[in-house]
């Protein structure tokens, strides 16, 4: 559990960070809170010789709340999602989900940007961001571009982000739907989901995404449409159709599918109740 040697860089602005990334190519990685990356380094599963720490870059921090859009800097901690009252008032599902991530120690340091950029199917934020229709801003050598969360995840640890890009910001349209729920079954505090579901519903709209049930988060347009029409069974059927869980210590595939259904139904019921 001891990482191999590496160079540590701590740039003060995005431009320097980007140029370090360019210089060192795939030998380099950015580090945010380190709560996914450092374990991988200790297991010597992440092989890198340059670590670029983003914590001194001021522009990456903070939450801005406008009329119908919320912007979250990539280096905002998961804990800040919980403690920002205005944010919780506008998009309460963020706090509900953040409280189910890991434990307080991890959340004080782990960032929202790291959580969505990581690409681990176990992370809770990616499914949530898909449910909310969030957009990620990626800054690269050729400038910046926007990628929808729903288009970002390709496979486990593979995302639309290029090696030389940094995820700088997450923008979330303030949802018109007033019903929300994030439900997660886990074995203990600090565990990734056996199954988790993010549901938004209200005013004839709905959005449904699931976590840790495939090698990417699963947003299902079909399930969302069915739920928008009030067809719960149709929504559940579509969502279950879209997932592809794997067996692990949490249990066999049949169990995961079963739990996925139970959790999704609970999230729907709770969201519908809150919408009413």
């Amino acid at each position, binding site marked *: 559990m*001891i990482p191999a040697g590496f160079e540590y860089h701590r740039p003060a602005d995005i431009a320097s960070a980007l140029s370090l990334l360019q210089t060192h190519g795939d030998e380099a990685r950015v580090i945010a809170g380190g709560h996914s990356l450092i374990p991988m380094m200790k297991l*010597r599963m992440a092989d890198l010789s340059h670590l670029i720490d983003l914590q001194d870059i001021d522009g990456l921090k903070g939450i801005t709340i406008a009329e119908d859009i919320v912007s979250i800097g990539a280096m905002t901690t998961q804990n800040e999602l919980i403690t920002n009252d205005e944010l919780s008032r506008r998009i309460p599902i963020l706090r509900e989900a953040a409280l189910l991530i890991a434990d307080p120690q991890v959340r004080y340091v782990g960032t929202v940007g790291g959580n969505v950029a990581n690409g681990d199917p176990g992370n809770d934020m990616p499914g949530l961001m898909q449910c909310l229709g969030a957009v990620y801003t990626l800054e690269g050598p050729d400038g910046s571009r926007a990628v929808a969360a729903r288009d970002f995840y390709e496979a486990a640890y593979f995302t639309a982000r290029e090696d030389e890009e940094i995820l700088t910001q997450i923008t979330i349209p303030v949802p018109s739907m007033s019903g929300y729920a994030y439900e997660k*079954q886990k074995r*203990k*505090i600090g565990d990734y989901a056996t199954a988790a579901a993010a549901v938004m519903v209200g005013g004839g709209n709905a959005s449904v995404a699931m976590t840790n049930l495939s090698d990417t988060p699963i947003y299902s347009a079909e399930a969302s449409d069915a739920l928008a029409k009030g067809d719960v069974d149709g929504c559940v059927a579509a969502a279950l159709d879209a997932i592809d869980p794997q067996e692990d*210590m949490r*249990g066999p595939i049949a*169990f995961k599918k*079963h739990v996925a259904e139970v959790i999704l139904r609970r999230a729907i019921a709770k969201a519908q109740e809150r919408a009413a």
Partner: protein
Amino acid sequence: MKDELTQDQRSANLKGMGSSRKRVEDVRFTQGKGRYVDDIKLDGMLFGDFVRSPYAHARVTSINTEAAMAIPGVVAVLTAKDLEPLGLHWMPTLAGDKQMVLADGKVLFQGQEVAYVIANDRYAAADGVEAVEVEYEELPVIVNPFEALKSNVVLREDLEGQTEGAHGPRKHHNHIFTWEQGDKEGTEKVLEEADVVAEEMVYYHRTHPCPLETCGCVASMDKVTGKLTLYGTFQAPHAIRTVVSLISGIAEHNIRVVSPDIGGGFGNKVGAYAGYVCSVVASIVTGKPVKWVEDRMENLMTTAFARDYWMQGKIAATKEGKITGLWCHTTADHGGFDACADPTKFPAGFMNICTGSYDIPTAYLAVDGVYTNKAPGGVSYRCSFRVTEAAYFIERMIEVLAIELNMDAAELRRINFIKSDQFPYQSALGWEYDSGDYHRAWDQALNAVGYKELREEQAQRIEDFKAGKTRKLIGIGLTHFTEIVGAGPVKNCDILGLGMFDSCEIRIHPTGSAIARLGTISQGQGHATTFAQIIASEIGLPADDITLEEGDTDTAPYGLGTYGSRSTPVAGAATAMAARKIRAKAQMIAAYLLEVHDDDVEWDVDRFSVKGAPERFKTMKEIAFAAYNQAIPGLEPGLEAVSYYDPPNMTYPFGAYICVMEIDVDTGEHEIRSFYALDDCGTRINPMIIDGQVHGGCTEGYAIAMGQEIAYDEMGNCKSATLMDFFLPTAWETPTYTTDFAVTPSPHHPIGAKGVGESPNVGSVPCFSNAVHDAFRPFGLVQSHMPHDHWRIWKIAKDLGLHS
């Protein structure tokens, strides 16, 4: 002279036995000021780290250390070839087997030690480990003990052709021993003739003690003095010294073993590990101190696991529920080497306590030990030598029998308890239970939880469930366990030939304070607190004025260490006996000072006073000063004593536990609504420490029953080597416990104490498990294996058709 304090006040000031004195250790532990092995830093210290096998069974065809040696900071790389000339490439195990220190031609489990890299710092050592090139030729893997006994694959080629093992004949090349106890024919006859026989396979899965601090050591060979100092996480430092001397040939007086603060042991730190041997060799070779500390994955994957017992049981009874016989055949999976830590004559530990709290006239037990491609160990995870397995077995069999008889399991237990007037009780499998009052404890427990009302609530819930009003069931888990601890009488208990007595040495200082040293070693149990209390009560000096020291073999008297709840039953007895020797001398001194005959003074809390004239007395403090500074005819100066205590019998703590659990049939999740634990550990030295021990042990039991396991896939890959998958409950998951007690002193122990550290682990595992089973009993569940994690509970419900 008149004393203003009453006897009670003087007694309270001592903070002796019965006082919930705060733990003196906690000041340093809660401030991060403990001194653990990894805190030890010696000048010029080097670090060792292991190359480990990724395969569970493979031939090692070559090891190339060239690239590793080229890494800056790497000093040396040891392989079996280097250890062979010293005869140290294999080491004896505590169970009479031998174990490879470094892979000698092949590996038998994933994570087995293959090479040992020595470097200037931890980082270089880890880089060195990465750079060692090992070529393997994979061999067929066996992870199932039943398959092992049928397979042509020979796991232990070194034993080929040996039909005799350390514990008798070997029936197959993957077989280790058969251990038989009790009356085979008699039991078979009872089974044949019984009204009712219930039969079940009860599996107690493989798990791990997982102490917060992993195993480690610092070996320091001083080439000038020829003295080896070995600091380590040892639960038995004196035994380690003797074993190191026997293995290495270094004279015992030239070895000093020190166990500093230990961050939990639970049996994991009883055994001898390759890391210790390699560090000692490395220090001898380099002439520098060498530190080795395993990481969490190494700890979970390679140092001593626990349990892994397949227990086939048959229990016979009359129609009315009186048990007439018990039969058990256990298949014990020991992994690649037999490294169990049991007294020599007990290759399956005290599994023969499996008749439990019940008066069972006839019984038979056979245990077959088997080699597989799993890590060795088989230590007693917070239990006295397989007592947990035994307790789980009998407490499950009772439940299975209750189903067969269609009886309430609480009532079935009551009918079969050994009665209080039957003690000392001779069990069918050879033990003499010292004392107990099971009926009283049982009634106290059932009343405390409102057992009748709970059953009514449960019946209502079942109706609601059937009517579709709820998806949650209630399980009521019952357990009455009897432990056997305090190993043990030297006549039948030894480890590697070392008798299992223990010791205490007390030295009173002239001003009336004291230091005591014991052969045991605390790993969190609070010895410095409780043993001072025993002395305080025995000799009348305040516990706060008594320093306790353990763990340094140069200063402490010889003892066999701390495990198997033996510290209080054995070293605690030695402490009382040594204190009594001091009091006997103090009596003579007091009589001299008071100018009366020895027999004319009597003991009074903290002093000797003249019989019939209590105003004439000498306090223990005064006596201590006189002992050193006054010439007393016929008496040597000084006031100290040592006692080596060979217990006449084991002690038999017991308890009644009841758990109420809510189970979500759909997700397999559970909630512990209440957990009641009544413990009878005889005389209670410190009730607060007992509560703490019960809380800790129950939490481990909860983990084991509800999720904790060391799991392997078919290739022998360990699937649970991190705390993500190995369930260690946080404060969040930990249930709230209600503790209670009864007191039935041990008749043969000087202060009547029986030991309590392990009772809660022994008792709570069947209690949690029985609650799960009980919830599904109305729907036809008879037996389902632990751990009862979400998916396994979901599977029970699914198989019973509760999901449609």
